[in-house]
């Protein structure tokens, strides 16, 4: 579930952009577009509950957030990280589900290495495995194409398509257009001169 009602994020008592409104239905895939520094990251973080300065209202439930930082403990293996995410969400993960998710993102060979030995692209794939295992219906993604090679980008598109087809919602800040059917764009416009 994702609704925005005249939402404006603030930073240092300044409004970052013009008020945004959005009503997302199940199956919606929304691209968040705007120039650098417009506030895309801040908006996603606000929806994820990490940024507390805003005007207006929003409702965002059952979400998962993928920011610029990986969110993986470098001293744990991918499997351990995924189990930990399960513990965090209160979801019981059995081995079969884990293996399937790892296999889907093509990380089976490296599944038992410490994450600090994995490349950025490989870590991104582990993050995608996490999305697969999560019970969240709304995905808040900040620049999901970062560090992904061509195969990785293909994988990302497949996962996003799958999630939306199953009735989930995706809100992704991206400079590269998402190649998903049924996607629409939410444009962030800079705030006016007198915005306070």
């Amino acid at each position, binding site marked *: 579930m994702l609704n925005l009602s005249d939402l404006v994020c*603030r*930073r*240092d*008592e300044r409004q970052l952009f013009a008020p945004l409104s959005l009503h997302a239905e199940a199956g919606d895939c929304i691209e968040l577009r705007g120039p650098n520094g417009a506030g895309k990251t801040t908006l996603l973080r606000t929806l994820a509950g990490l940024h*507390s*300065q805003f005007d207006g209202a929003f409702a965002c439930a059952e979400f998962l957030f993928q920011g610029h930082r990986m969110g993986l403990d470098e001293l744990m293996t991918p499997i351990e990280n995924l189990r930990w995410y399960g513990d965090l969400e209160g979801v019981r993960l059995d081995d079969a589900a884990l293996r399937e998710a790892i296999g889907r993102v093509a990380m089976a060979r490296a599944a038992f290495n410490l994450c600090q030995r994995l490349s950025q692209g490989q870590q991104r794939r582990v993050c995608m495995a996490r999305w697969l295992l999560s019970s969240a219906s709304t995905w808040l993604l900040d620049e999901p194409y970062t560090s992904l090679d061509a195969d990785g980008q293909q994988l990302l598109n497949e996962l996003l398509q799958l999630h939306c087809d199953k009735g989930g919602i995706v809100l992704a800040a991206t400079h590269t257009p998402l190649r998903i059917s049924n996607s629409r764009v939410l444009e962030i416009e800079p705030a006016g001169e*007198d915005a*306070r």
Partner: protein
Amino acid sequence: MGLKEFWHKLGSPRWFYQISLPWVVGFGLAALVLLAVGFVWALAFAPPDYQQGNSFRIMYVHVPAAMAAQSLYIGMGVAGFVLFVWRMKLADVFITACLPFGMLLTALALFSGGVWGRPTWGTWWEWDGRTVSTLVLLFLYIGIYALREAIVDTELRGRASALVAMVGTINIPVIKYSVEWWHTLHQPASFTLTEKPSMPPEMWLPLLVMVIGMYCFAAHNVLSRMRMEIIERESGTQWVRALVSGQRAAG
């Protein structure tokens, strides 16, 4: 005006600015009168202490300064709570305003405590309950100050200061008691603040006057700083611009 309405109105810095001028003037005058009277009374008319002679008169500066400094910190703690629960901007303005004067008062309390110690015990500095307590208070103030210097974002800075002020305030009674405890173990025979009841009225009346005078001075200082802070923070808004241009036209 009921309490609820008053609380609601405090959400508007502009309203506060408009009603606070008479209070600033009032507290200022009261402070001037009380401190002048108290000072003269304390120095000239109160009887000398049978043990310490005339040097104990520095108490008339030290005690009010220390009490006011501590009250200001607790005030910051309470304002911090208000900031977190009601998100009132004025609470952060209050905390910003209390900080400089609070630090000044604490330093004054420390200095006067030292001056008191010199003729009484022969040292500029004595690690007793009172001095340690005051020194810790100074560090509590400096902690908030340093934290504020490190955060640029106004709203985050306010929340961070509020949090630290609250935690510090909760710890103040614990710190005070622990230091008193340690002090009584090490130096059972010193003049302490808590011996007030044994002071005759000729001694504690001028002290009371000085204390109230100091509190009025603190209130005057804090309120006027709050007004300045409000002008600075709201400098882009209509009402401030009108105010400033109106003053320019008049002056």
